[in-house]
């Protein structure tokens, strides 16, 4: 279906509290890195896809204007893709379709966010409907803590076990971030540190939660013909994509058996020919702004049965040496410049199958999943990449 498309290179900023650069310069840093990584120049680019969180985040609207120069996009065809937190994966989807359709051969995708210049939780509260829901949902933790309660109750998972598994995830991801030169939070934590950290919204504690990061990510997508012409061997072929959005009203849908996540993954699996994701995938970059939610994604993505995730987490199934390592980059938990985050998941998945992930490489990765979630648990997007066409 359509022309095959590959990711041929990625560029990331050093994510974190980047008060040393302006927002356009942050974007420029990622874009220059992807040109360095691929050896291409802006002249090689047929189109640019840009995306971010809503304008309230940094107080600038329609930022493709602002970053026209930083993205090297002057005189180029442009797309501006935004789907809330899932923006990063939606940007990757747009770049994929643009190349796959034959409308372009080489497309630059750029996601960005400079969260330390605004109030991210205030912004996210305005995602919610203004009359009934906005007053109840205090930013992201409110929605996600309710969701984690629903999940525990639904499957009768003891709270202590979930707490232990979440702490395990937090500890191992914080350890992994030390192997990722671009990660934001680099902090050695123990299981007890996580369990005793400050309550944010019960049962979620500080070390269960992602940071506010400044960061940008740039990824270049190319057609099969362009890959051959450029003589590239190590590329990440796009094997499957999926996206679903569900009810706007938070209470209207089951957030434990979470249809947007389940169906987005299924769509991508069907395209990639994946039947048993835990076996067929070598690594997954799951969007995990909250430790609890990461386990729900394991279940919705079919990595294990419903209600089983905490047990498997505690067995190490999803740790770096386990059967299906998840978020070896440290994930969203350690780095979250939201508009870039989904694209970082895709970029990290691509680095793994290109065998270019450095110290956090999972050896022999051939098939990897990148994912992002957006809205008040409303949207899920997935992209699967593989080392073989």
């Amino acid at each position: 279906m359509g022309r095959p498309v590959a990711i041929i290179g990625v560029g990331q900023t050093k994510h974190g509290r980047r008060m040393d650069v302006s927002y356009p310069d942050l974007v420029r840093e990622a874009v220059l890195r992807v040109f360095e990584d691929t050896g291409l120049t802006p002249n090689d680019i047929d189109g640019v896809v840009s995306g971010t969180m809503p304008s309230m985040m940094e107080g600038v609207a329609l930022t493709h204007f602002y970053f026209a120069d930083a993205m090297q996009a002057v005189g180029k065809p442009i797309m501006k893709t935004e789907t809330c937190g899932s923006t990063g994966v939606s940007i990757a989807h747009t770049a994929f379709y643009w190349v796959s359709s034959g409308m372009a051969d080489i497309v630059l995708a750029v996601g960005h966010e400079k969260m330390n210049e605004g109030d991210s939780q205030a912004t996210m509260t305005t995602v919610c409907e203004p009359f009934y829901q906005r007053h109840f949902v205090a930013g992201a933790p409110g929605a996600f803590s309710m969701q984690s309660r629903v999940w525990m109750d639904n499957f009768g998972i003891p709270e202590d076990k979930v707490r232990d598994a979440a702490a395990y995830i937090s500890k191992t991801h914080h350890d992994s971030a030390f192997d990722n030169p671009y990660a934001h939070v680099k902090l050695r934590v123990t299981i007890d540190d996580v369990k005793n950290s400050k309550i944010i919204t019960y049962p979620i504690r500080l070390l269960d939660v992602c940071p506010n990061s400044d960061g940008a990510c740039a990824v270049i997508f190319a057609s099969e013909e362009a890959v051959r012409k450029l003589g590239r061997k190590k590329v990440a072929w796009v094997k499957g994509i999926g996206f679903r959005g569900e009810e706007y009203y938070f209470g209207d849908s089951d957030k434990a058996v979470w249809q947007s996540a389940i169906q987005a993954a299924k769509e991508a699996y069907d395209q990639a020919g994946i039947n048993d994701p835990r076996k067929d995938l070598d690594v997954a970059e799951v969007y995990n702004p909250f430790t609890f939610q990461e386990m729900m994604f394991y279940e919705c993505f079919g990595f294990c049965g419903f209600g089983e995730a905490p047990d498997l987490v505690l067995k190490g199934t999803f740790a770096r040496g386990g059967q299906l390592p998840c978020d070896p980059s440290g994930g969203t938990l350690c780095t979250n410049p939201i508009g870039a985050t989904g694209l970082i998941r895709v970029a990290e998945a691509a680095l793994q199958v290109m065998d270019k992930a450095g110290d956090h490489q999972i050896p022999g990765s051939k098939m990897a999943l990148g994912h992002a979630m957006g809205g008040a648990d409303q949207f899920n997007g997935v992209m699967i990449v593989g080392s073989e066409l």
Partner: protein
Amino acid sequence: MANRVAIVAVSQNAGAESKDNFYDQAYRVVKDALDKAGMSREEIHTVVSASSDIFHGGISCANAYYWESSAAFLKPGSRQDGESLFALAYAAMRIMTGKHDTALVVGLCKGSENPENDTCTHMFTDPFYQREVGLNETVAAALQMRLYMERFGVAHEQCAKVAVKNLGNALRNPYAHKKGIYTIDAVLDSKRVIDPLTAMQIAPKSEGIIALVLASENKAKKLTDKPVWLKGYSSSLDTFNFGDRDLLNGQLKNAASRAYKMAGITNPRKEVDLAEITEPYAFQELLWCEDLGFCDPGGGGKLIDSGATQRDGALPVNASGGVLANNPYVSRGLQRAVEAFLQIRGEAGEHQVGKKVKTALAHGTHGFAGQCHAVAILGS
């Protein structure tokens, strides 16, 4: 184009303030488009919408709000921000890959719930240099207009004629927000907003929910006898710093030449039968006509004087009344495509042009003095 994509049905709402809430408005227009295509929601494979977030409507992540009422519930979908013609192109790309057979494109902008247009456009500025000086789309347009008149000797009266023509055309368009028979003097004597722009040369703030059903070639032929094909498309982005740009030598030429090339058009003056252009400021219709190759550089004033762009002219421009009559900020580009579709099908009602329309151009622009342009070529 390898896999051809057709528009098979369209729907739009009226530009004046509606009592319907956003959900209902979106639902009605989308349902109407599906009914016209003879399709159920289940037959739509993918939905691409266009909207803008908190500064247009008070909701961050606008797609969250209208996702279900625009038929996208549990469907593969996406959203474009700022320019709705992006969404048309993106939905077409989705079909061209063969992954999807049908697509719904929806542009959404509920002007009556938005702040003033320039409260929003002011937020395009960077926070350090340009915001402090109060730059917004109207200030930028006023500077561009002054330059245009000085460099090419275009007269105030020629700019005002665009408003006279478009607001007059709008009398025949039931969806138009502003309309009426005015004299050039009335336009020039209307309130001076930002010199040299007067109030009637500036587009209003309108409602605009727009829906189009797209289909692959095979599917389109089953759905309609009169498919309208997307023959060409491109967009182009200009540099950010306002003072760095030559405001009369922008990116529209680039976007147009790429779209023409894709559509196989070598002489737009002859091959384009009708154009729907985004002219939030009257003089911009003249300037954009030059950049689109409808006349020589600097010839926009003479073009309107010649009558060629009138509804009964050789190359009707904005027979619907254009954006001066109806300005739902984000949706306005897609509305141009809807009008082009209706003209090609001969279904534009009282504002149907007299001549046969085989090829029509839809243009969208957003940003200061046209920082970004998109051009779509539709044909029978």
